[in-house]
């Protein structure tokens, strides 16, 4: 009966209840969208970093990354590579040589990091070929081809098929110079990386640096199950104790910071939204209680005890939240899913986004974490919002309440 009374009470002031329910719907809708948008941005950022920079796991000589010395290669990289390729947990592997050097054109010179790559491996790990915006990429029958970014090309004032000269050390510490023909120009969403990296075939670099056949500076790999990255990395660390095995989180600790920072922001935002909703709901419920003083007085006069009156008001409040919440949730999930499909184009801000390594298309994401956060928040909100009006209701004295017109 209490449930029935509470439910019907909501529909006594249909407009008023609908307005509050509407505010709950819009609040949750907007919140879900915003959280989804942020989540999408983080995911975008992380996946960009993983795709372009860190992969899931990388293996190096333990001190290679402090100085990028050519001689610090892993002689058994070929063996490790073969073992990884056979491992079911591994999706793709790329073996690389990394050479610091100076890239010069007729106009100017620039410090770069030359990555000696197997183009097919690279395609499966970093989808390098997809990022080429001019040219065909490496031709099988030609030597000394290089891929540079649009930015580097502009800076060096060179074009596709121009010649550039790369100066670097070989494995013996001798300065070596080689001329490369630009076989392609690429572009990623990360400005800093674009200015830094140029790519050439691993065979050319091996020959020029005189690094033996099986050797490589870097092995990058993608795992099949992203969630098990840490676990898999641990097993690799045990297997190859002589080398440094790092996950993307270890390579790029800012990812974790960024992630937790955004998570805190999401919680703050949820709290702000819910606070706004709480006051809206309290306001309405207080109105509902105050205009029903006489009725509440009567209920208490005929023997409804305070606990029941309290529960009735709480139920009314919770009903309002519970009607609004699923609608808002569905709208929010729907909107997010739809926008995830079509993507939100932020190309107007693409320059700024590139500075942060984000691509201009954001795909909002709702995950179960977001949904749980919001569900919990709504329940807490509804309960908190109901307490004050319910307390107000049970503080009424029946005689005084009955006297009110």
């Amino acid at each position, binding site marked *: 009966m209490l449930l029935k009374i509470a439910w019907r009470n909501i529909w006594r002031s249909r407009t008023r209840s609908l307005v509050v329910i509407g505010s709950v719907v819009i609040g949750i809708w907007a919140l879900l969208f915003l959280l989804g948008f942020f989540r999408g941005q983080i995911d975008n950022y992380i996946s960009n970093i993983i795709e372009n920079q860190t992969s899931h796991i990388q293996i190096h000589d333990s001190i290679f990354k402090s100085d990028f010395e050519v001689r610090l290669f892993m002689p058994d990289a070929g063996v490790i590579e073969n073992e990884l390729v056979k491992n079911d947990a591994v999706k793709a592997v790329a073996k690389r040589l990394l050479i610091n050097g100076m890239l010069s054109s007729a106009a100017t010179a620039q410090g770069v990091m030359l990555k000696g790559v197997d183009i097919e491996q690279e395609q499966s790990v970093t989808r390098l070929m997809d990022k080429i915006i001019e040219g065909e990429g490496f031709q099988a029958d030609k030597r000394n081809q290089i891929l540079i970014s649009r930015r580097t090309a502009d800076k060096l004032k060179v074009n596709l098929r121009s010649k550039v000269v790369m100066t670097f050390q070989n494995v013996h510490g001798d300065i070596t110079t080689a001329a490369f023909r630009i076989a392609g120009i690429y572009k990623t969403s990360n400005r800093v990386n674009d200015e830094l990296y140029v790519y050439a075939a691993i065979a050319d670099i091996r020959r020029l640096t005189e690094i033996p056949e099986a050797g490589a500076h870097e092995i990058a790999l993608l795992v099949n199950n992203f969630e098990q990255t840490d676990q898999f990395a641990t097993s690799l660390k045990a297997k190859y104790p002589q080398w440094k095995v790092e996950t993307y989180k270890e390579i790029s600790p800012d990812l974790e910071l960024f992630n937790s920072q955004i998570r805190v922001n999401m919680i703050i935002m949820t709290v702000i939204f819910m606070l706004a909703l709480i006051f809206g709901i309290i306001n309405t419920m207080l109105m509902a209680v105050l205009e029903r003083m006489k*009725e509440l007085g009567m209920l208490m006069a005929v023997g409804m*005890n305070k606990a029941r009156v309290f529960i009735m008001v709480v139920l009314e409040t919770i009903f309002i939240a519970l009607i609004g919440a699923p609608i808002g949730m569905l709208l929010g999930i729907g909107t997010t899913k739809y926008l995830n499909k079509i993507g939100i184009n932020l190309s107007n801000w693409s320059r700024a986004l590139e500075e942060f390594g984000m691509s201009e298309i954001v795909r909002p994401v709702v995950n179960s974490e977001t949904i749980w956060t919001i569900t919990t928040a709504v329940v807490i909100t509804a309960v908190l919002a109901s307490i004050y009006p319910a307390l107000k209701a049970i503080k009424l004295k029946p005689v005084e309440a009955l006297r009110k017109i």
Partner: protein
Amino acid sequence: MTDKKVVVSVKDVHKTYTETKVPVKALRGVTLEIKQGEFTAIVGPSGSGKTTLLNIIGGLDRPTSGEILVDGTDLSQLSDNKLIDFRKTHIGFVFQSYNLIPVLTAKENVEFVMLLQNVAQQKRDQRTKELMEAVGLGDRMHNRPSELSGGQQQRVAVARALAPKPAFVLADEPTANLDSASTANLLDIMSRLNQQEGMTFVFSTHDQRVIDRARRVITIEDGKVLSDIRK
């Protein structure tokens, strides 16, 4: 009448309202007894203290001093929550402005107090039907209060008051908002219930038509019993 059970016993009750700037002495020593089966009107000009007396008898308000026994229970000994439970089982209320629960049907309104008492469904249905028929609204069970006339609503209120089989029914100016036909009808019903079922009724009223039908008239003035006439 002397052999009947005493339902309400009021002994030297004083009530002073101190919330106001000047304390108001609403009751100054009222003593009276109401016995089972009486049909009593408490009358008096406004401000005489009759509503205060009714509230105190009904356990809605507490006296400043004095003793109230209802069905042998000293109301001053009960905590607020116990008092609510006591009202639920011992006292039926009929209010001036009906005060039905607007979101419930007539039947549900009558059923409500029994529900609070956890009376079984079957018993509730039977009692509700009996009472609705007794007040002549057997065909209006499923109407909401807003679909009933004032007289009909007040009859539902009477049925509700009787539902828990209280020791007595307190009615605060029950006819004040009714036209004469509804008033006559309501009084017929109440006196029939009084005579046939021996239900005790206590009214406060201004209404001469109610006073005429009452078998006992207690007049209150300035917070004291001025006269107590049994017809």
